[in-house]
């Protein structure tokens, strides 16, 4: 497979990368791990004239702690997230989600920044990003700004990232005490993308009552969304109570613009949203204790 020709650029600073983007405009695409873009280029579904590879830009990789926040460089790979000690200790759902993206070889190169900027509607991390309230740090010609996850996913493969910006960092709040989180998905048997995936972050008061619920749903619609109905249904409820989670999970498809395709009808995918909302909340609540 031969993609269409392009010019390759390998800047060594974010500033240089931004400069190139400013100069090349729409003709340029950023290259992170390449695992979304390159397959599209091979099929010539994408034919950028310029690729700006971020791999030689220092400071975009790795995980560090900043108070109660985990700071993840945008070029950090799924495998690094899967195995990183800080992430596993402070927000294990991010590791768990990363560990079921694609396959082992894909996870070695694919990056969190690339994934969140590409915003594939069936990608896994967007659900977890919503549930965990990620913040995306974007750098542009005028400096940095932070975008909250609820403003990030704007539509089919479109995000709040502006054309002259680079997603440089993802900020993940560490899970508070008494909080449990889980991401569960129903994978496509071939691609392993999520037909439906639900991430749940549940905080309890220690006696089984839900003090806060944060739920993200991916796969079923054109973009990942927050399941506000489920969150409202859980808040203040004693989760040990018979049917409490199941009742809340009934709103799992609310606000999802469910799309029918070969993997399922609207009816079925909406049903899966409810099933996986229930399962994810149950798993998260169990971990919350």
């Amino acid at each position, binding site marked *: 497979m*031969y993609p269409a020709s392009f010019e390759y650029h390998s800047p060594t600073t974010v500033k240089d990368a931004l400069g190139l983007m400013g100069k090349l405009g729409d003709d340029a695409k950023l*290259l992170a791990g*390449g695992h979304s873009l390159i*397959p599209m280029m091979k099929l010539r579904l994408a034919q950028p004239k310029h690729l700006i*590879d971020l791999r030689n830009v220092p400071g975009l990789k790795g995980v560090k702690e900043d108070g109660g926040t985990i700071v993840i460089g945008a070029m950090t790979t799924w495998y690094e997230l899967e195995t990183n000690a800080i992430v596993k200790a402070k927000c294990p759902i991010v590791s768990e989600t990363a560990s079921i993206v694609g*396959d082992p*070889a*894909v996870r*070695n190169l694919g990056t969190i920044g690339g994934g969140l900027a590409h915003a594939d509607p069936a990608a896994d991390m967007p659900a977890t990003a919503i549930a965990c309230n990620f913040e995306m740090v974007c750098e542009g010609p005028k400096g940095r700004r932070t975008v909250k996850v609820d403003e990030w996913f704007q539509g089919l493969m479109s995000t709040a990232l502006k054309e002259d910006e680079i997603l440089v960092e993802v900020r993940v709040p560490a899970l508070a005490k008494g909080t449990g989180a889980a991401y569960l998905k129903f994978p496509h048997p*071939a691609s392993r993308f999520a037909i439906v995936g639900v991430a749940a972050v549940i905080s309890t008061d220690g006696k089984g009552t839900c003090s806060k619920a944060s739920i993200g749903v991916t796969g079923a619609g054109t973009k990942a969304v927050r399941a506000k109905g489920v969150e409202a249904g859980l808040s203040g409820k004693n989760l040990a109570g018979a049917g409490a989670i199941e009742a809340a999970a009934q709103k799992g498809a609310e606000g999802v613009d469910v799309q029918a395709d070969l993997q399922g009808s609207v009816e079925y995918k909406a049903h899966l949203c409810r099933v996986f909302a229930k399962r994810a909340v149950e798993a998260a609540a169990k971990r919350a204790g």
Partner: protein
Amino acid sequence: MKLPVKMTINGQSVSHEVEPRFLLVHYIRETVGLTGTHVGCDTSQCGACTITLNGQAVKSCTLFTVQADGANIMTIEGLAKDGELHPIQQGFWEKHGLQCGFCTPGMIMLAVQMLERYPKPSEEVIRHQLEGNLCRCTGYHNIVKAIEWAADKMAAAK
């Protein structure tokens, strides 16, 4: 415009000028002439092109050659040392882990990483780790056995 690249493949230093759009797998196969790495799909699903890049298993079809500039690469041809098969290669032979042989180099290279990360993998771990490598001949049964065999052999050697 062609760009210079330099990398180490199976311990040998190689350098060429390549078109940026040239995928690493094509560089390995067509330019360097190591044809053991195969192309089985165009969507990064099959894993026949799996190699290790700086010690990690990657799909060489989903990487431009220019991205591998400076890398240390190993392909299936570099796995046996001084004519002695790697235990994973032996395992595939002993346990009949291959039939047509086309997916085999990718399977073996992925297994190299797998056993580094999981020296004593359960059957479940092996099957999960193989999710990016397709085989149409074996039904995976003997591939799992081959990797189990290699894991035992490598553990015994330690």
